[in-house]
């Protein structure tokens, strides 16, 4: 009997991912004591746990995307709700080490059409990246850019290394691990959101820090 190795890997990853999810929700139940010796490793563990789970989730989705199965389920969602949810999640992860805020431009409509789960996964990846490198603050921002919804993650870090910016500019695959996988995923998510012939877009720039923009038509 032939062993279906890729199927085996996929189900193994599923199981690991679910166990990690369980671990993460269990860790959420451990409350900080105010003692840094207790809280610091706890916070670090929660973050690590989420990052691993998220990585696996992306890997599974990339696997599907490679097989042509990544078709977004678009419906109407509130950009403000989505960013609010991500803000609270991020703030809970960093406790008071960083300040996470949301800004919604006045012209952003109450609802927009996208696959919330895919878009959140792409943004969460950018947020976790910022959590690692930001000094004091992370800003989640929604605005309109030439008729497309622009969801941005901005931090006050030193910014993206030049080779990553280069890759995005030239639409090349990312080589570096971790961040590269997440960005590849974000680009796929952006491109999967097409409307009336216009595709979504991933833009990375260095401004006051690293700026990650997902444009959704």
């Amino acid at each position: 009997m032939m062993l279906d190795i890729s199927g085996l890997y996929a189900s193994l990853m599923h199981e690991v991912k679910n166990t990690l999810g369980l671990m993460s929700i269990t860790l959420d139940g451990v409350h900080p004591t105010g003692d840094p010796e207790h809280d610091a490793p706890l916070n670090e563990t929660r973050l690590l746990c989420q990052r691993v789970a998220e990585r696996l989730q992306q890997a599974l989705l990339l696997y599907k995307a490679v097989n042509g199965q990544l078709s977004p389920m678009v419906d109407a969602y509130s950009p403000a709700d989505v960013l609010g949810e991500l803000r609270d999640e991020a703030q809970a992860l960093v406790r008071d080490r960083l300040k996470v805020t949301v800004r919604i431009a006045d012209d952003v409509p109450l609802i927009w059409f996208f696959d919330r789960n895919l878009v959140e996964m792409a943004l969460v990846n950018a947020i976790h990246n910022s959590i690692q490198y930001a000094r004091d603050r992370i800003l989640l921002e929604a605005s309109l850019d030439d008729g497309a919804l622009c969801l941005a993650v901005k931090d006050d870090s030193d910014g993206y290394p030049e080779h990553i910016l280069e890759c995005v500019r030239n639409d090349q695959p990312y080589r570096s691990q971790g961040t590269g996988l997440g960005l590849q995923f974000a680009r796929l998510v952006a491109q999967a959101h097409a409307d009336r012939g216009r595709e979504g877009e991933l833009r990375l720039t260095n401004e006051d820090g690293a700026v990650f923009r997902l444009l959704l038509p």
Partner: protein
Amino acid sequence: MSLIAFGKAETDIDYSAMRALVVDDYPGMRSAMRIALSNFGLTKIDMSANATEVLFKVQHNEYDLILCDFNLGDGRDGQQVLEELRHRGLITLDTAFIMVTAESVYEKVAATAELAPDDYLIKPFNAEILRHRLDGILRRKLAFADIYRYFAGGELEKALECCDLLIKEKPKYIVDTLRFKGELLNAMGRFEEAEALYKQVIQMRAIPWARLGLARTLHMQKKDEAAEELLHDVLEDSPELVSAYDLMAEVKLARNDAREAQAALEKGAAISGKTVRRQQRLGEVAFANGDLDKARAAFSAALDKGRHSIFVTPADYGNLCRVQVEQGDMNGALDTLKKGKMALHSSPEGQLVSAVVQGLVHTKSGRAAEAGRALDEAVRLRNVGARADEQSMLDLAGVCMANGRLEEGDAIVREVARNAHDSDALMAKARQLYEATGRGEAGDQVLKEATAEVRRLNNEGVMLAHKSDYAAAVECMLAASREAPFNPRVIMNTAWVILKRIDQEGMDHDLFAEARRLIEEAGRQSPGHTRITGLRSHLKQVEGRFGIHGSKKK
């Protein structure tokens, strides 16, 4: 740019008085969820490991929210649980139902908003995400409270008004509201308005449910060519959209392309084979196409997936056995009866189906004495009021005829014909029974006589109603429904003319009670028929106008 302070802009949700049910086959996940929920302030949290437990718990408690894992241990999935809860009226639209799934790509678009969960949560998620999603759903439920109340009470006009109001007052919910409104319009038979509505949504964005909704209204208006074209495009864009295959099959059938209908159902079943009704439909279409192997596989799957499900009835056992007998697999048919013994013996209908299949098997096997005993048993059951589905009844008629009991056979055919005079498929099957025993002419005569009176009364009643002579129409239709007490079209027409007459001439309590009974009967005979919701709504309106309180029995 404006900074938004979250949690302040909208009403806070108070969880302390709520009751929740957590459904997951993994104990670790259940307890983690319970801890998370209790941190939100919930104190009443129940837990279930499988579908059977859920149904039991929900019958005994009212839940404000249900968190249900999609993959459940006992062969049923979360979507089946949700559909069963809704169909049995065990939860209302006020209950928040959240599907938890490990899949990032999943069967998301349920056929209707009513059968869709309120949200999907993808594992892994943490407490903050859960809290945000719950807050969002419960706020939406609050905004929809009036719409749901009127909808549940059958007051569809009022529900429509509330939709329009909500669109104005809470534009954030415009798309959700339009989705619900589209389904209301369809249920009320206002297809042109529904068509315009779906086109309006598609103008905003061609989201799958709006395109499906549009295709459905086109099909209801018999614009099947346009519906087919649209569905073709939808499936090209989203080949995983299972409910589009179901609708495509109905459209193909309407265009007399039964082969293509079967192909569409097969594709849907390949993606999601657990849905009992998809397998049942596939079985029926394949059987009509003479594709016995496919029919057998589909009917078997329906029984297999639908164990303990309300969507499985004795007719499903009859369907599978009929294919097996047709294939000459008599032992297979008897085996099916044996496996279904528990389910079949618990109702007169099931016992009747069982007797019919035995009669069929023994007749085909040339065992006259056994066939006779099975027939006697069937006759006894019929005499005490047992009724089975029309296909089984015609099988019974066939067995009677094959055993020389012609008059009993004719009587059964007459009864079926009266109650299904507009079903071409059943009439054709009845004709075959006669041709098989060399009595083709006698058969034509029986069918003609049996349906003539019903047909005449029904046509006349409808004509009178169109001339607004509701008094005469009611007399006519009452006579028709005495002739054909289980004929869905006749009893729906009768209820309709009664309600129209009351609208015109004022209350008549006896007639009103009859209309209520007929609508209930129509719901039993033709569950989910598009006219029933509209009739119930009409009944409620009349009730409201004359200050009658609906019967509380459920």
